[in-house]
Each structure stands twice: as C-alpha cells, then as structure tokens.
C-alpha cells in the first residue's frame, strides 16, 4: 500500500524499521518499541477495522488500552488472540495480524449494507420485531449471530501454559507515570516491600508523551528494584477485590507470540498492605457527525504517536478541544513538521497557541468527510456560522476521565469535579488512595455537540450514537442502567472507557439535571479484558482437579485393567483376559468370587481412627447405630444421617482396642465425612476426650472374598482369620496388617488394611495365593454385580441423599436410645409417610432391566419409582435390579414395567425383596 505523500499517516524512514510483520497478508516493517497501531500509521495504514453493528470503516483513535476501534486478531493456530487492540500490542518479528468483522475484505465489506438500514435499526430495534413462535426467532437469530461477533475464536488447543502466582507486598503502586514512580520509590526507600505495576512495556506513563528532563523513569525503576521492590511491566491490575486483594495480569509474551519459558501469561494474586492508584486519565472524544472515521483521533494519542514513536498520524491537522492540553498537541505537531490548519477551541478564550496556528474560539466540529485511510475535510461551527477545512486528521479532546475503575472496584465512592466535568475518586473503604492526575484532572468545561445526532457516535465499537441515547430516553429507559442495557452503550470490549461520560452528559442534558444527578454506572473487574486461559491457569489442563492415584496404581496398571474414574480417583473396573470385554470380564470375576476367591483393591474407602476414652461417645453421635456395646475385636455395619434425618453415608466400625476404633465410610463421601466428623468433634463436642485421625490414605485396603478366602488368608498369616465381623491384627508377607472380616460380596470375605507404603508386597502375596487356589483379582464392576445380588446399598446409588433408614430397610438397626445426629430430623412426619420410595428388588420377567429406568404400572403413567442398579444373576443368569419404589416395602410380588424412553428400552419385572442371594447370610457366618 503506498501512502499518499501529502495526506494520511506517515513516518520518515530512518533504517530502524527492522521488524517485519504482516497485516492481512501484506508485509510491513516496524521499529523496535512500536505498537501495532504506531507501525500501521507509520506505514500509511489508517483503516484497521469495521464496527460491530453497521460495519462502518474504523481506524485508530487512541494510543492506549481504551481503543474502541482498532481491533485485530493476532497470531495463528491455538495462540491466535482475537479482538486484540492494535494500540496494546507491541510488534515482534514474524507477527501475523488479521483484521476482523469484514467480508470479503477490510476495504470492501459486504455487511456495510447494514449502514444503509441504520434508520430502521436504532437502539433496541430487535425488541420490536421478529415476532412469531420461538422457532422462527431461531432462524433470524442465526443470521444476526453470524453478522455480530468480532474476531474468530481459535479452533485448536492452546499450546502455551499460564501461571498463577501468589504475591505479597506492603505497598502496591498501580501506574508508573510521574506520580506512581515517585510513590513507589518513596515507599521502597522507607523500607516497604513494594510492587509497581505498569501495563505498558516501558515505565513512564504520561512522561512518554510529555517528557520531563527532571524525571528519569528507567533510573527510578532500577532504584526501586535495587531496594528489593518488584517492578512488573506489561502487567495490568485488572481486579481489586475484598481485603486489599488484587489480581494482576502479566504478559510474559506478546499476544500470539511464542513465549520464552512456555508460559504466555502470569496471573498474580496479590495481597497488599496498602494500594496506591496512580492510574492517570483517559481523554474524552467529541461527538460530531461521522466522528468515527479513520482520521479522527484523540489529541493526546496524536501527541503520543508524534513524540514517542515519531509517527505523523496526519499532515494537515485540525485540533478540536475544550481544554488547554490540546495546545500541547498543536505544539508537538508543529515541531514535527505537520500543518495545523485550525485549532477549534469550544471556549471563549484559551492559552497562547504555537506560532503559525490559527485558533478559533467558540468553535466546535460538526462533521467530517473522509477517504479510505484519512479525512478529506472537517466542518466546524464557529460562532454561529459553519466553516470547512481541508484536513486529513482531526485531533480531538473533550476533556478527561480519571481512571477510577480500581478505586470503584474496591468499593470507593466518586465525587464530582465541576470544573473538569469529571468524577474523581473519593472515599474508599479499603487501605487505598488515588494520586496524581486521576485525582486532579485539568479543567474542561462542557461543550454542546454541534453535529447531527444520528451519526455522532458515542460508543464507537457498538455503534451507539447520540440519537440512540435520545431514543432510549424517549422510550422511558431513563436510569443509566436502563440506558446502557437498551442501547448496549459501554458493553463493547472497551467497556465504555471513551463513551460513558459523553453518554452521561447527554442523559443529564435530557433530564435537565447535572451529571452526578443523572447517575453513574458501576465498574466491575476486569479493568481490561483478561484471557480465559490465564484465569484457568494450570486448571485448563485438568479442570483444577488432579487425578488421585491409589497406592497400587502401577501394580494394577501392569495387568492392563479397564480403569474407572470415580470422583478424582481412578480404580480398576475389571481385569479382562484373552480379549474379554467389560461385561464378560466382570461376570467371570464375580463367578470366581462366588465359587473360589477373588481379591480387589478397596484402598479408597474412607477410614478414621478414633481413640481415647470418649471415642465411643463420639461415634454414637456420628453413627445412627449403636457402637458402645462392641467388644474389642468386633465390628459392625453402620450408617450415618445428616441433621435432616436422611442417610448420607455408611460403613463399618471396629473396636481395635479398648480405646481405639476404626470407622470406614464410602469412597465418594470420604472428604465430607472427614469434615462432618471434625465439625461434630471440634465444634459440637469439644469436651470429648478423643482423637480422630483421617487414615484414608495411610492404609491401603485389599478385599479378599469367596468361599476359599478363609483358607487362603489362614495360610498367608499363619493364623485362623477372625469370624464374620471380627477383627484381628496379623502379619502378612512380613508386614503388619489389620484383618477385618466383613462381607460386601455376600461371600466369606476379609478386608486387609496395610500401611500404603507396604501394600504392594501384601497384594502380591494375596494375589499369588488366590491365583494358586484358582481365584483372580476382581474390579469394581464385579463388585457391583456381587453387591446388587446380595442387596447391599451403595452411597450414590440407593443411598441417594433422599432416603431414610426405613426406606432402605435399615430402620431396625437405628440406635433405640437416640442421641445421634439426625435423630431429630427423622421424627418429621414426611420422613415416615407410607408413600415414600422404599428399596425393593426387581426380577425381570421379560427383557434386560435398564439402569435408571422408570417404574410404571402402565404406559402413560407418571413414574412410581426408578431402577437404581441393575445386574444379572451371577451363577444362575437372569436380570435383577435394585429400585426405589413408592410404598415398595408393601408391594413385593407386584408386576410392573421398567421403561426408559431415552434409550427405547422396556422390561417387565416383579417386585421382590432386595436380597436375592443368601438372604440369611449363611455363606459367611460360622
């Protein structure tokens, strides 16, 4: 693209243009330190993007993070970052940039036709049309959705990591302008632990635009660092939360670039003793017709491009202002060799202008016309009459907005500065202060807009004009929040940084009140948008949930089992041999347990050692069954209730010694059980003399079950194993173990608990002996078949959080003396209503029983219950299931239908007792 020599943005070549990058496929060259915006302007490119709604051509308006127009996609593949501000992106070698929201090209965008329909598409037009059934709206919507949106999201996974790091300091200073630098250095010199945060790539803030020979930012930064301070560049304080906690987002690499250490960004979680906000000002644009065209730029931005980057954004420049600051821009432009064709000052008087610059007072721009990359002409209302200027750039300043976002996020209040027409930070509830220009914005009196409302844009990205604000007012959307939501003002990626105050002024004018009376919108985090990957951190890979490994993971892995995720755990589900599938393997394993013996890993069970003279008293509070009468060396099944009387866990309790018990509970409930017991012991009964220690991970658990289990274990330990529900310590493979004679499978069975670090030896010994006897390891799936056939309930299945002990057939085991947690809740009438869902068994009369299926008497009926678990008889064959059925205890023998419409399955079943196998327990009792 060849720049017009006398029009549009330009920069004299110096040979420093050493960094090559591409924009929409064209290669350009930039100097080190250039932002993309500076580099594009230097190469004569003024047209950078298209607006959201009307697809109007847009250029570069600012030189900072407030940029509403110049949004691009940078990078490729999984690193591509859409909607990146050209003003907040430092050029690096090989950088690839694409413009957005245009088709087929930036210069010719078909969707610009929306602009023609603009008169019918004012604020909230969509609320007034597209009626008909919701399905019709889906069709309109598909079209609207494609037209909306900005860039494209990547479709590949992100190759980079994101770090999240804790930070602590006495003083956190946000902003490295003159005020921030001074505050940070003073704090560091006073011995405080200091963090100084700057969103730019170099320190200095406004000094980069308006250098002060008396202040050397780089030297001050070095001094702060030497005093032990931390200075973070390319870092934005994006959130200010409770108790002086702030989140800082740091770029370790520019968007789209390959990061040097594999980490693209770092999120700092900082707790600060004191926070100093030196966040400066953002300049206000000026509303006039077509004020969104490339070549309309904020005055300070123009000065930044001229002074910091040596770029002339235009060569024939009109300046429009309501304050003194823009006169400095005139000065900078004149020094750089541009022609300032007019300085329009809305005020009746102003300071002296640079030599050769004509100042017009009582002068406001009313419209501009433009060509592709620059303006053609500026029209102004001067006094009462219009005058046109041949110009390629207009630098505007409508006053200044203090950056008070963090102050407000911290819960701070704002006060109105009438002279500056600006809200400035006031009181704050946190240990926080604002300093510098954000507290003292320059005077800038209000000036009424002079152009046509319809194309006088306020929110540039979302195409909200003065006319839209007027329409919202007319239709009764008069609170600021209604106005914003109705017009979408301030909802774009710049979050209204350049639009909020202009809109508020218009609203105040409509209401005939002052701006502070018209209201104020709140600022919530983030200050500038933050990548989701950064907020996810390492959790992007694992959802914030590390896999929990069982102690024998590697040993099982060697047998190539089918693994089963269970909460965060992974457990063997089956050990297939000879190409077996899951179903066949599980059935073989279960049959082996029923006929010979099997061993299984039960390490994830919740386990608690409770010791001390009051151990039994604590357990009788936690457990709903009796505990205190257990003899040493004996155990029993138990269950626990929530305070509302419903069953929430079950397990076994064993008296290991006079004052020592072992309580087991379900895998899934182990963490909440640990918390619950701690609550009961420490909060409710701190007086009890006992110790509760969570030994879930200390002990690995191995279940050995089957008719041959007793003989196998006796041989391994050299001792007669305990009888059913007995406990004995023992030694197996040279390792001390606890042997608990408990049966989940319905066979004679033992749990062998061993310190996890020695579990492998014990497992190997038991496995060898079991295999020698014709047995085999079994996984969760076989365990499920065994327990369903036996009619044992499982937490998360039949124990569904809505069942009472009576529902589950456990009512008879309740501690008659009461006094346990949940006893009070259990007395409520609905917990003993006859229509409650009760645990029953189902035997199929026809067809396999779908798990989760609904129980009905006839088609079309509302369900009366559901199948909680289905299986087949292990040795006999035939489908069985456990179910919860309305009034089920009294419905044994009834015939019902199990239906699963989502799977198209159905079965005819008979209701039975849930105990299909050895209901008397003869197979494990002596």
């Amino acid at each position: 693209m060849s720049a017009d020599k006398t029009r549009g943005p330009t920069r004299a070549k110096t040979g420093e243009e050493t960094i090559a990058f591409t924009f929409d496929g064209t290669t350009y060259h930039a100097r080190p330190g250039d932002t993309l915006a500076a580099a594009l302007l230097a190469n004569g490119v003024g047209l950078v993007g298209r607006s959201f709604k009307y697809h109007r051509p847009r250029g570069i308006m600012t030189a900072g993070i407030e940029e509403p127009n110049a949004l691009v996609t940078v990078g490729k593949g999984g690193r591509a970052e859409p909607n990146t501000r050209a003003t907040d992106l430092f050029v690096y070698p090989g950088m690839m940039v694409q413009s957005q929201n245009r088709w087929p090209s930036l210069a010719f965008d078909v969707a610009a036709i929306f602009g023609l329909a603009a008169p019918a598409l004012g604020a909230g037009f969509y609320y007034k049309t597209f009626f008909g059934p919701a399905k019709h709206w889906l069709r309109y919507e598909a079209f609207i959705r494609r037209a909306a949106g900005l860039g494209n999201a990547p479709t590949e996974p992100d190759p980079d990591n994101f770090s999240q790091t804790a930070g602590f300091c006495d003083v956190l200073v946000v902003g490295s302008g003159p005020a921030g630098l001074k505050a940070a250095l003073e704090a560091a010199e006073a011995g405080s632990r200091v963090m100084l945060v700057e969103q730019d790539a170099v320190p200095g803030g406004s000094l980069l635009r308006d250098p002060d020979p008396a202040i050397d930012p780089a030297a001050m930064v070095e001094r702060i660092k030497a005093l032990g301070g931390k200075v973070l560049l390319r870092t934005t304080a994006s959130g200010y939360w409770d108790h002086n906690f702030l989140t800082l987002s740091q770029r370790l690499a520019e968007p789209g670039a390959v990061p040097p250490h594999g980490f693209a960004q770092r999120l700092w979680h900082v707790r600060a003793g004191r926070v100093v906000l030196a966040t400066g000002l953002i300049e206000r644009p000026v509303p006039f017709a077509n004020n969104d065209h490339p070549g309309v730029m904020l005055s300070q931005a123009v000065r930044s491009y001229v002074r910091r980057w040596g770029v002339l954004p235009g060569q024939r420049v009109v300046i429009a202002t309501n304050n003194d600051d823009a006169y400095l821009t005139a000065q900078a432009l004149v020094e750089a060799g541009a022609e300032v064709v007019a300085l329009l000052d809305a005020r009746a008087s102003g300071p002296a202008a640079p030599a050769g610059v004509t100042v017009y007072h009582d002068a406001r721009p009313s419209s501009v016309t433009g060509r592709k990359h620059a303006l053609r002409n500026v029209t102004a209302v001067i006094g009462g009459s219009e005058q046109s200027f041949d110009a390629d750039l207009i630098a505007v300043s409508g006053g200044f907005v203090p950056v008070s976002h963090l102050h407000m996020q911290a819960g701070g209040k704002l006060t109105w500065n009438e002279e500056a027409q600006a809200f400035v930070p006031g009181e704050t509830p946190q240990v926080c202060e604002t300093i510098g220009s954000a507290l003292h914005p320059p005077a800038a009196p209000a000036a009424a807009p002079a152009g046509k409302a319809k194309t006088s844009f306020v929110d540039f990205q979302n195409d909200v004009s003065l006319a839209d604000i007027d329409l919202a007012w007319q239709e009764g959307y008069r609170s600021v929040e209604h106005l914003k939501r109705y017009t979408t003002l301030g909802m774009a990626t710049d979050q209204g940084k350049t639009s909020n105050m202009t809109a508020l002024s218009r609203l105040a004018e409509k209401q005939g009140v002052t701006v502070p009376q018209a209201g104020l919108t709140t600022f919530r985090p983030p200050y500038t948008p933050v990548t989701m990957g950064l907020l996810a951190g390492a959790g992007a890979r694992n959802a914030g949930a590390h896999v929990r490994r069982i102690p024998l993971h590697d040993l099982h892995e060697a047998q190539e089992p089918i693994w089963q995720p269970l909460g965060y755990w992974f457990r063997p589900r089956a050990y297939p041999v000879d190409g077996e599938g899951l179903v066949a393997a599980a059935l073989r394993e279960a049959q082996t347990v029923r006929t010979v013996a099997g061993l299984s890993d039960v390490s994830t069970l919740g386990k608690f050692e409770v010791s001390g003279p009051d151990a039994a008293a604590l357990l009788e509070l936690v457990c709903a069954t009796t505990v205190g009468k257990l003899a040493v060396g004996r155990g029993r099944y138990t269950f626990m209730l929530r305070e509302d009387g419903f069953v929430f866990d079950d397990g076994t309790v064993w008296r290991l010694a006079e004052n020592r018990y072992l309580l087991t509970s379900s895998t899934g409930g182990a963490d909440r059980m640990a918390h619950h017991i701690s609550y009961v012991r420490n909060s409710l009964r701190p007086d009890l003399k006992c110790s509760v220690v969570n030994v879930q991970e200390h002990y690995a658990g191995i279940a050995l079950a089957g008719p041959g289990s007793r003989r196998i274990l006796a041989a391994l330990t050299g001792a007669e194993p305990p009888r059913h529900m007995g406990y004995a310590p023992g030694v197996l493979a040279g390792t001390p173990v606890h042997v608990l004679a408990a049966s989940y499978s319905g066979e004679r069975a033992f749990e062998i608990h061993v310190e996890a670090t020695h579990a492998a030896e014990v497992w190997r010994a038991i496995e060898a002996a079991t295999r020698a006897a014709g047995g085999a390891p079994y996984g969760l799936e076989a365990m499920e078949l065994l327990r369903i056939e036996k009619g044992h309930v499982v937490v998360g299945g039949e124990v569904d959080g809505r069942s009472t002990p009576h529902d589950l057939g456990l009512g008879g085991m309740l501690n008659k003396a009461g006094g346990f947690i949940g006893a009070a809740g259990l007395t409520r009438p609905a917990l003993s209503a006859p229509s409650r869902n009760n645990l029953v068994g189902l035997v199929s009369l026809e067809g396999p029983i779908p798990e989760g299926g609904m129980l009905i008497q006839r088609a079309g009926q509302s369900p009366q219950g559901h199948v909680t678990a289905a299986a087949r008889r292990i040795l006999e064959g035939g489908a069985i299931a456990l179910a919860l059925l309305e009034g089920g205890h009294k419905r044994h023998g009834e015939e019902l239908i199990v239906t699963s419409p989502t799977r198209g399955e159905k079965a005819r079943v008979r209701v039975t007792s849930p105990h299909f196998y050895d209901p008397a327990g003869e197979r494990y009792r002596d």
Partner: protein
Amino acid sequence: MKTPYSAFSLLRGAFNGQKHWEPAWRDPEPRSSYDVIIIGGGGHGLAAAYYLAKVHGIRNVAVLEKSWIGGGNVGRNTTLVRSNYRLPQLHNFFEFGLKLWHNLSDDLNYNVMFSPRGAMFLGHNDGDMIKLAERGDAMRCDGIDAELLSPKQIAKIEPLLDLSRSARFPIDGALIQWRAGTARHDAVAWGYARAADALGVDIIQKCEVTGFVRDGNRITGVETTRGRILAARTGICVAGHSGHVAGLAGLRLPIEAQTLQALVTEGVKPMVQSVIMSQSLHCYISQSDKGGIVMGGDPDNWPSYARRGQPTIKEGAIAQAVSMMPALSRLRMLRTWSGVTDMSFDGAPIIGTTPIDGLYLNAGWCYGGFKATPASGWTYAHTLATGKPHELNAPFSLERFMTGATIDETAVGPMPNHR
C-alpha cells in the same frame, strides 16, 4: 393505547427518526391503596403483576421497586431457560413455564429473544450417564422432551468440545433438551413491565419498602420511602433479599443469601451453538447473540448481600470450562457480574402463603430463578388472586421444611453451602 411493536412500525420510524414511540411504561405516583402490592420489580414481580391483570382481571396492582426495574437477578443471570429436572415437582413446574416461554414474545408484544437452541448436560462416566438417563426418562414419562446424545452426536453440535478420551473428564454422552435455550434477560423484565403497565398496573420505581403495616396477625400494607401504601394482599418477590424483607415482618426464612457470579467474554463469531452444562463439573457455557461466551459456575458458598464475587471462585469455573472446551483459552473475559441469590435449604423455591395473613412469599430461587419467570409469575398471581396455591406451586410451600417434605434435586441436604 401504545403503538404496537412490529417491523412495519419500525420501518415507519425510519422516515420519522423513530419519533413515534411512547415510553414503554408510565412513571406514576403511588396511590394510597391497592388490591395487591408486589414488593420487587424484578422479572417475577412484574410477571406476577402482568398475570394478575391479564388472567385474574386484578388491575389495581402496584409493583414497588426500590431501585430501577429489572436491576436485580433478572438483569444479572446467564439467561438459561430449561425444564430438565429429575424431580417431578420441579420438571412439571418448569415445563409449564417453558411452554409460556415459547410464546412469550407474542404474548407480551416484546421480543424477549427466547432462543430454543437446546441445552445439554454432559456426562463424563458411566455413573453420570445413568443419572442423565434417569433424569431423561423421568422427564419423558411426564411428557417433557429429552434425548440422549452420543459423543458423535455431540461433536456435530459442539465440535469445539474436547471429545478425546485423554480429556481430564472425558465426555461419554449428554442429555439434551432441544426446547430449552436462552433469552434476552433485560427484555423479559421490560416486556412484562410494558405489558403490565398497559393493563393498568402501576410500576413504581425508587420506592423502597421499609416496613409492614400490621393489624394483629394480618399485613395490611407497607411503609415505603414514598409513604405508606395499603393493600389487601402483599406479596414479597425480592429474591436475593427475601431474608431481609421477610425479616421486616418478623419472619425467619429457610434461606441464606449468597453471591452467584457470571461472566462474558469479548464477542467472537459463533462457536457455541447450544447451552452446555455438565453433570460432574460446575460450569455452564452459552454464546450470546452479540458473540460473547456467557458462563457461570457455583455460587460463592457463604452468605453475602454484596454484589461482589470472589475471583478464585470464578477462576475455578473458568478452569473447568477451558478444560472442556480448550478453544476458549484465548478469548478474553470482558465483564463479570454477580447476583445475590436466595439459597433455599433444599434447592427448590418457595411460593405460597406465610404464617401471617395477607402476606405471601415468592423466594428461594437459588441459581435458577430466571427460567422460572413466567411460571413463577403465573402461579404467584394465582396465589395472590385466590389466597391459595396453584397445583403447580403447592409443593413449594414454606411449611415443607418443618414437615420434611423437601424437594431436594441435588440431594445434599439442608446446608445451602454444600449445594
């Protein structure tokens, strides 16, 4: 009579600068008494007022809003609308509402942009899939649409989900409700307000209730920042602040106020077609018409009235979302917001009478109030008009906590912070 909304009228406006539109609702002074006062100008309160006027012919109604209408939870949610609950009391209630949603734009003559694009719950293991089937079967038996999807079918709808087996929580399938979707939340409040106003309901903004007028065990009106206003029946409808307002009448509720956060990213071209939720993870994702990815997670599970969430809670939800859909990684979180939710003690709402005569309660919506707006308004209007619950809200009584007839969808018991 207001100018009806239509494409024709919009086109007419193209030639007159849209100068023909009147205010969507009036700004009346409060009268000294009404038949019914509804405290709270949120979605539910405005909907209840609309149905009182439309269905029950009771038009002498005031909606009192302490701030601006729609500024509470109806304006700060993630706009999901669905009826895919496991428990019959819940799915029947929400299904009634879903049917109202499908015709709401026409009914109100205000496009609320209800978009039935489908809402899916992902399952990540066999246990999840059985629970999803159970839920779907329960719904289907009661005549509500639900369909199980295989990973291949999911891939056709949401190709950007990580459907690989190496995902931390691999996706085994999903339960989708096609008739579920999203709506434009502000439009719901504004649409109900405009329609209620047209039927004569007084919508009174900047009018905070500071106390109740009491005669024995009967409430006869309210004290407000704009004076005393009397009414035969007064309905509380201030979810988020129910505990506080009921406290003014001396009631302690089975409710704890918690913060629920949500966020939206910068807009991108369409990448998420449906509403994605998960049976095992605690985040939900959809894409707005403007292109922003809207998502949320679990509440900050401790009590607060501040509309100010904690960053780490949000980061946890985002980690889950990015792990499910890695393409979200380079999108940027643009805006966050929080609502104050009424966490009830079984997770289900409370709509009905109270121990005090003349005082009615609509509360306890937890994080599911938006989708309930039409059904809640409809049944609350019925209750306010007749003094008795509609059959759909009868199970959601305040007494159920003391009797034990709780409606506990997630089955975690009485502690809202465990929910």
